[in-house]
């Protein structure tokens, strides 16, 4: 098993006029999905990210306040999963509720330390 990172972009519903009820449903869908990954032993860790941030360039000569991308391009969180290979990792992401709200998942293999 190797580790893979999911980068979540968009789909947090801020651009859509979601009612509180829909938000709660969406949150619960995420909970179910992540619990599923936990039960099958694929879940490693993950955290959400604030949408605001800073971009630092040239040793801090240039510091730009975020958001630095359009809503749908902002990384809203990440998750690390265990999977057999990249295809398997992509397969595991298919049920992610982010797709219900127009977001995307970027799947990347984490480079192992003992290469």
């Amino acid at each position, binding site marked *: 098993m190797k580790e893979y990172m999911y980068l979540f972009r968009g789909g947090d519903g801020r651009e859509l006029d979601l009612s509180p009820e829909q938000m709660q449903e969406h949150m619960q869908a995420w909970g179910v999905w992540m619990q599923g990954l*936990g039960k099958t032993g694929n879940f490693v860790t993950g955290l959400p990210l604030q949408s605001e941030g800073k971009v630092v360039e040239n040793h801090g000569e240039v510091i730009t306040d975020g958001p630095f991308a359009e809503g749908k391009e902002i990384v*809203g969180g990440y998750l690390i999963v265990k999977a057999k290979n990249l295809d398997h990792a992509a397969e595991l992401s298919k049920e992610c509720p982010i797709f219900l709200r127009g977001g995307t998942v970027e799947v990347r293999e984490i480079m192992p330390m003992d290469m």
Partner: protein
Amino acid sequence: MISPNRETNTVVDHFFRHQWGRVVSHLTAKFGVPHLTLVEDAVQEALAKAMQTWSFNGIPENAAGWITRVAHNQVIDALRRKQNFDKKSKELTTANGESSYTMDWDMEEEIKDDELKMMFACCHPALSAELQIILTLKILGGFSNAEVARQLLKKEDAIAKAYTRGKKKLVDEQIALEVPFGKHLTQRLSKVLRILYLLFNEGYSVTTGDMLIKASLCDEAIRLNKLILDCKRLVKPEAHALLALMYLQSSRFPARINADGQLVTLEHQNRSLWDQHLILLGKEHLELSAAFGHMSDYYIQASMARIHCEAERYQDTSWSQLLMLYDIQLHLNDSPVVFLNRVVAYGKVHGAEAAFKELTDYPKIKTLEKYPLRYAVEAELLSENGDYARAIEKLDQALALNSNAAEVAFMKEKRLRWEQRLRK
């Protein structure tokens, strides 16, 4: 290390929806009605943050406090950003700075109170009935424009516009966030109850709309009615009677639609599906209402619902008691609709023929010309007397006037049965 939190999935039903009404009311009471829209944006953002973080981290212990605090800080931030343009908000933000703000369980009472005040503001007589419904659904129920539009059979942007107009009116008319005192209280309370009654009926009627939304309209009406009864000085017989009515009617929800999505009438419902707990709650509130010795329209309707709930089978229904209640109701409210329902009960007690005569002798029969229920009732009475030919004629008249798919399907099925009997 983070692990997928099992509690994420166990947040109580409608938690976000209810938090919306609570927090919007609370922060609007705090920052003032002119900032209502800003408050709504802040609560929307707080819920979006909750949705984003809680799915990863699980639900914090004081989830309600979390949302209130995040929304509160969001309002302060927004007001600070506006400061350059608006001196007044500068005073506000210093007066309500983050540091002075703590959220704990002691605030429960204060928040409940704010929600009640908001309810009275939304149902203020200066607003039209439609605006009252829209404001109540949007502010207290957290419904989206799309959900309200689907329910009221309007276009989404029409609802958005009406809502903006309603909010402007709250500001322009300087409608205060308060629960009125003294002689105004009874009158204003009855307006609030009326809106809750309408909300419930919107949800309960099978005429239009999305079943899921409809059920939540009923839930909202019940929740807000309970909130009223939580406040000592609002405990009035009508409030108990209305809650009793809502509980008793809701108890039959699970039996009203069959597996094929078709309407099942009272007569054919599987009574074992009725929610006995809700029936019990309904009876309790009916008794509490009766203790005041005051008979409201809600009381009569709830008493009727109770009679149905108490009959083990349809044929056990105490029609004579029902007829008595209809007589009282007709006396209080001489409406053709009440009259039609009374005719049904009358037929059960005195026979179909007598009931048919009762209906044809009704002085206001003309007002029922466009009313499908009238023809449906006539058809039913004729069929009971075995006159299927005339019954079908009447049913066709009812069909021509009815647009509700569930009811039309139901009547067509009945028509088929009668046709078969006619051929025999």
